[in-house]
Structure formats: structure tokens, C-alpha cells
């Protein structure tokens, strides 16, 4: 049920004791997300902080009660766009490892739709990068959310405020 792409960079440009191979990951899955497990997959030895965003299904949006959500993706393109995001993040920020996992299918209230974890030696960069990644993911990665209410449903077009 899970499409996984893991990048291992074998080449180390500045070898020093605290350097190891980068191992980012980006995935799309129908399975429930375990935030703690995903967050800990990005840990490298020379890092001191992981910042994690856990996005989940809200019960109320704009005052209206959601019964559940359905997420759909253009999967191969979504994975490519996630990979591009991660590459851009490494260009722009001083961070170590990134993990992004997005769930698809039917999600109940309170279930996690997306987890983004960033490990960095310094927390400032981890916060900045994690916030940048979720903002960009919502703008560029071809995934769509349908909100289902008691009396109807609607495909959301464009990023929500969340």
C-alpha cells in the first residue's frame, strides 16, 4: 500500500567525525501514520533537534462539521514534487535530514494526514525548514482533499489556512 523512495547519498563532501550519509525519505501511503516512528527515522548522530509537523483532520472547518476526509494524489508526480521540495530545502537551509509522509484515502477526524520531520544540529533551521516544507507542499504537491459533511461533500481547491 505504500510507495517509498529513499535516497542514500554515498558521497561525503566534508568528511568529519559527525558527518554521515544523508538519508531523506518521501512517501505516500494508504496506511495510518505513526508520528513518533516517522520523526525518529530522520535522526542522524550529529543532530540535536528534530522538528515535526503533524497535520491532522479537523472536526470543524469554517464552522462546518466535517465527517471525514478523502485525500487523493497524482502519485508519481506527487512523489517527484516531494523530492524536489527536499532538494530545494537542502539548498536553502542548513539541515541534515528530512522525512515527509502523506496519507491518502479516507481519514477520520483526528487522524494524521501528513508528517514532516526535519533534523538539524541547530533548532532554528529545523523550525524554519519544517514550516517552509509544509507551506510549499500545500502549494506544489498534487494531492487533493475532499471534505465530506452530513449534507454533502466538496473538493478543496487551493491550500487551506491550516
Amino acid at each position, binding site marked *: 500500500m505504500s510507495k517509498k523512495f529513499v535516497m542514500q547519498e554515498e558521497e561525503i563532501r566534508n568528511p568529519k567525525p559527525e558527518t554521515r550519509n544523508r538519508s531523506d525519505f518521501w512517501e505516500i501511503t494508504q496506511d495510518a501514520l505513526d508520528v513518533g516512528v516517522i520523526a525518529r527515522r530522520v535522526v542522524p548522530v550529529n543532530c540535536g533537534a528534530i522538528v515535526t509537523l503533524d497535520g491532522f483532520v479537523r472536526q470543524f472547518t469554517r464552522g462546518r462539521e466535517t465527517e471525514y476526509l478523502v485525500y487523493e*494524489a497524482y502519485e508519481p508526480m*506527487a512523489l517527484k514534487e516531494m523530492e524536489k521540495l527536499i532538494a530545494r530545502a537542502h539548498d536553502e537551509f542548513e539541515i541534515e535530514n528530512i522525512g515527509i509522509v502523506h496519507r491518502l484515502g479516507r481519514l477520520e477526524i483526528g487522524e494524521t494526514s501528513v508528517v514532516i520531520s526535519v533534523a538539524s544540529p541547530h533548532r532554528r533551521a529545523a523550525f524554519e525548514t519544517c514550516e517552509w516544507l509544509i507551506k510549499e507542499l500545500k502549494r506544489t504537491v*498534487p*494531492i*487533493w482533499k475532499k471534505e465530506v459533511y452530513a449534507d454533502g461533500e466538496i*473538493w478543496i*481547491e*487551493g*491550500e487551506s489556512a491550516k
Partner: protein
Amino acid sequence: MKVSVLFFGATADEAGTREIEVDFADHARAEEVFGEIVNKYPRLAQHKLLFAVNQEYANGDEIIKDGDELAVFTAVSGG
């Protein structure tokens, strides 16, 4: 030339299908091709649409080749 066109979410609902195959003259520009697709499913025009060619966002200038994978979708709402 034959290309496949994919729809997702709202555009799949409007088109009533998730994938079609269409025939176009060779060397058509993406803009023309996507224009014809929207003409074929006029309800698509109610939405702000995004287009992709071979899983990359298209700006309209791309030259479409036989076997290309096109996609028509609305602004994304993941996260």
C-alpha cells in the same frame, strides 16, 4: 498522435472519468491540447486549472509528443 489525459479530484468529477485517450495532430503545443480538452468538458472551465505534461507542471509552451501523459487538475489541497 495519441496521448492519455488524467483527471483527479474535482476535475475527475467534472469530466466523469479519471483517464481518457485523445488524438491530436503531431507537434501540438500544450496550450492548444489542454484548450481542446477543456472544450470537450466545458464544466472544467469553472475551475482554476493546473496542467501537467509527463508529471511536470506545464506552462503551455511544451510540444506534446505521442505517448505523453497529460493531466488536468485544480489547485492542490494536500497537507
